[in-house]
């Protein structure tokens, strides 16, 4: 029943020419439609997806690199700042020491000066006192002597040179 009506079996190795035509036209149509409207977009989508994935990875890598760089930068900055701080502290310490030394030196100078002034003043006062004393002692001694003698030796006080000579001889005797 299924055998070809002509009763002659077709040789399966030989193509039917109508089928060659049908096959060519239909496959050409398939290729035309799909190659024109679908597959280029598919390749584009493929590329877009690859870009999206690889681009994402690249962006992440770049962000990571940037973060690392920033971290490094911050670290160096921090180290610099630390060094700076240490330097400033050292400077301050040195300054403070210098100032202290200065103040000490000045204070010492001042105290020396004060002491020297005091000594000078003392010496001057001493000299003044000694001078006053000398005249006063002379006067007192003369008055005492006049009282003891019971008569005024006021006239003789004019002979002050005698008293002075006496006292000088006393001093030189004491110094010897």
């Amino acid at each position, binding site marked *: 029943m299924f055998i*070809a009506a002509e009763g002659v079996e077709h040789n*399966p190795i030989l193509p039917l020419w*109508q*089928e060659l035509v*049908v096959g060519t036209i239909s*496959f050409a149509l398939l290729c035309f439609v799909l190659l024109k409207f679908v*597959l280029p977009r*598919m390749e584009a989508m493929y590329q877009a997806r690859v870009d999206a994935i690889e681009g994402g990875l690249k962006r992440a890598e770049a962000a990571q690199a940037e973060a690392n760089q920033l971290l490094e930068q911050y670290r160096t900055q921090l180290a610099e700042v630390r060094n700076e701080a240490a330097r400033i502290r050292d400077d301050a310490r040195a300054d403070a020491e210098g100032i202290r030394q200065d103040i000490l030196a000045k204070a010492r100078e001042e105290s020396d000066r004060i002491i020297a002034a005091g000594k000078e003043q003392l010496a001057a006062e001493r000299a003044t006192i000694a001078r006053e004393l000398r005249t006063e002692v002379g006067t007192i001694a003369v008055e005492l002597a006049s009282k003891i003698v019971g008569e005024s030796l006021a006239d003789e006080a004019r002979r002050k040179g005698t008293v002075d000579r006496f006292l000088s001889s006393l001093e030189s005797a004491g110094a010897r």
Partner: protein
Amino acid sequence: MSGQLVVAQELPWPPSVGDFYPPNVAGPWVTKFGIMVWLAVALLIIFFLVAYRKPTLVPGKTQFYAESLYGLVRDNIAKEQMGAAGIRFAPYFTVLFSFIVLTNLFAIVPGLQISPNSHIAFPIVLAAISYVMYLYIGARKHGLGRYLKQSLIIPGVPWPMHILLIPIEFLQTFVVRPVTLALRLFANLFAGHLLLLVFTIGGFVMLNSNSLFVQVTSVFSFLMAIVMTFFEVLVAVLQAYVFVTLSANYIGSSLADEH
């Protein structure tokens, strides 16, 4: 009993080449095979157009299937056989691959139950396209003379050997390649259909036999038919893969700079 015998006699046993040529539906242009090819073309166009109606970066289900098919051909066939140059040809290979797979699978689709590729005309068309393609590409890339020289002359062989090698290489590149490409696909589908016929119709013939033993053993025949059906699925995909891979390989060798 006599009715059964009539049925048995009506079954075309043994299966023959005639089974591959059903009567025309309406003249030589509207045949079962022609209709099946148009059906395959229509199905593929609809599938791909629907899948890529609104493509998105994160694909939907249909889009994903279509892209998986493209990805398979692009990366596992085109790139594998031709390197980066293959991506240019991946769209055509995808069309070729999906067309062959679908028409091959018609062999086991109820109602169709035969693949258009079991008529050699269709494999011839497909092989001819690959043939013309790799010849044209080779001639365009290297120039006709250099392409012929490159295809026929194997470098580094003592000259007397060329007397033997040139005809062999010529036969290989220009005759055997396209012929085997078409024949391989055709023969596989032809034989596959014949096998299914043998086990299915054979099963019915055994069932109609007078001997109870033969009737019972027909079960094995039907089981074999089922096994062979699964086997046909494997053959359908495998032959499509082989056809496209070899086409890619031939085009790749045309593009290559050495023999």
